């Protein structure tokens, strides 16, 4: 094995300044990641093909018959803006949840609030998590339900959501906004550039043996 070194990685991530498309509402507070993708679908070693399992137990009964769920409805096929309520993505840290949504076709999630790990996982995939007031979100969900073919525009930099004649004053968390707008959300590449500073920090910690962070390990 060659000596470990971490490079700055490949090209910088793409900029995500805006997301436009049709919406799909999934209502309810505290929708946890076990609902977004049940654990039994995580017995895989890649994320490929997870999209079909999004909200699986909400969408199908024991005999695999379809239940009422927006992800089953023809009118929302092709939608890429998911509109949710409060504390979406709570629970397990599984990145399988945003991976499944992204592979289903979701490019942005708009909601009242998000669980932190979920929002971080979305950012790592370049998927914005945009928040707005409860009233604005519910109005947007109503609109999307009534107008499944209408376009919803998210401006990440300006922190607005626009539909019909309405402009919602939204929020994209500072670091997330900066990362997406400037295309610096590939944190492996970002942090990989600071190799020497990492070793210096590690060497200053009394619990880290010098040989664990030495430059040329055998």
């Amino acid at each position, binding site marked *: 094995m060659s000596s470990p070194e971490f490079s700055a990685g490949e090209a910088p991530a793409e900029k995500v300044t805006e997301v436009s498309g049709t919406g799909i509402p999934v209502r*309810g507070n505290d929708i946890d990641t076990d609902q977004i993708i049940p654990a039994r679908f995580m017995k895989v070693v890649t994320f490929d093909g997870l999209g079909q399992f999004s909200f699986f137990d909400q969408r199908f009964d024991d005999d695999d018959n379809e239940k009422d769920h927006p992800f089953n409805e023809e009118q929302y096929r092709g939608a890429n803006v998911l509109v949710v309520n409060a504390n979406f993505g709570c629970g*397990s840290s599984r990145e399988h949840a945003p991976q499944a949504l992204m592979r289903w076709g979701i490019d942005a999630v708009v909601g009242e609030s998000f669980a932190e790990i979920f929002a971080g996982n979305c950012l790592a995939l370049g998927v914005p998590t945009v928040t707005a007031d409860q009233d604005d979100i519910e109005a947007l969900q109503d609109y999307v339900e009534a107008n499944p073919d209408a376009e919803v525009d998210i401006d990440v930099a300006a922190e607005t959501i626009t539909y019909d004649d309405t402009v919602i004053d939204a929020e994209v968390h500072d*670091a997330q906004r900066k990362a997406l707008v400037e295309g610096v959300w590939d*944190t492996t590449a*970002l942090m990989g550039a600071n190799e020497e500073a990492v070793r210096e920090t590690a060497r200053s910690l009394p619990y880290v043996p010098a*040989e664990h962070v030495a430059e040329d390990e055998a």
Partner: protein
Amino acid sequence: MSEGTLYDKVWDRHKVTRLPTGQDQLFVGLHLVHEVTSPQAFGMLQERGQEVAFPERTHATVDHIVPTGNRDRPYRDDAAESMMAELEENVRDSGIDFSDPDSGDQGIVHVIGPEQGLTQPGMTIVCGDSHTSTHGAFGALAFGIGTSQIRDVLATGCVAMEKQKVRKIEVTGELGEGVTAKDVILTIIGKLGTDGGVGYVYEYAGEAIEDLGMEGRMSICNMSIEGGARAGYVNPDETTYEWLKGTDAFADDPEEFERLKPYWESIRTDDDAEYDDVVTIDGSAIEPTVTWGTTPGQTAGITEPIPDPDDLPEEDRDTARRAQKHMRVEPGDTMEGYDIDVAFLGSCTNARLKDLREAAAFVEGREVADDVRAMVVPGSQRVRDAAEAEGLDEVFKEAGFDWREPGCSMCLGMNDDQLEGDEASASSSNRNFVGRQGSKDGRTVLMSPIMVAAAAVTGEVTDVREMEEVATV
């Protein structure tokens, strides 16, 4: 902003630089790895032609998919076998220590870190698992990360994060008889909500916390994430140091212990520290506490009525109505007497030796109710071995419990241990989400290990204080 807290100090010691995003780059002192969330990260690393930067700061085990019965290889479940094989290959190729089932050290990642002394005060600890907050019990800054962040840590030894606020949760007074750390954390989440901790790190303090052993502190920190807080911690003290002295890291190396102790002392929260928020909870008023719904925040003391959704804050009503329908409970009733089909004693929250001792002391001389399927899943092989050396396995088996091999088991139903149909489970685990224990119609009631033992014996949710001979260990 907080100042002078353990969180501030550990953050500062591990901060490498400020990133262009405004996040800080933090060095990770210990990276724990398990089979479910890591394979894709290793895959991404290989795609980029990168290697693991600091394999010696990394430790792996297998817990989520590992069978708790027949563990002969290949595993009967092909998917589990392929995940295990993938992990074996990844750790071998990268030179990462692996507590595998043949080592005698395998177990739930949040049980083995502390018992091997990998977990130490003043460290930054991450794992692709939200219950990484457990390790905060030792005064570490520990939190769960997603798979892309695992890639970051594997490749660079660092995570990118924004600093959060610190909320001190002071639990005053003494806990009553039959009341445990689990009841404390269920009460805290019930009061502050499942999203009350978003944006915060929780510092647990106060007499009731200081009186707890490390196992109890771990149970509390473990469920920080259920309250929305990504991390929670307790300042290290003599209780912490006593535990550390007995671990692999220091048992034979008292000099190393003495060398590191000043660092551990230095990162304790200062007396005049400033917090972003302080919450005080009267520990002496906490009852044995259980969940009545489908989030860990839907809790009630065992003698308290299940709330009427109409009396709850508006944003909680809809969730409460759906939860009560799923659980088939009525407002105004208590959870006492709720019939259960399964008793599950296990998980990273409550499957340590002390948990098993307390439950066994209660179970001794009693029998599992006829219609209840009861199982004990020790948190690790070392916990299993220690429990067997004390004869706890015999106590459980004689009472009618199934004594199984260590793993996550029925906490999340990724192996054969699952609820079936609409079975109701008295569970010492951490999540009562719909479908969590493997059946979408399954019903989970979270509670302490001793309450699980009581429910197993009576076949219904039971106030353990009402039973005779409540033993405390």
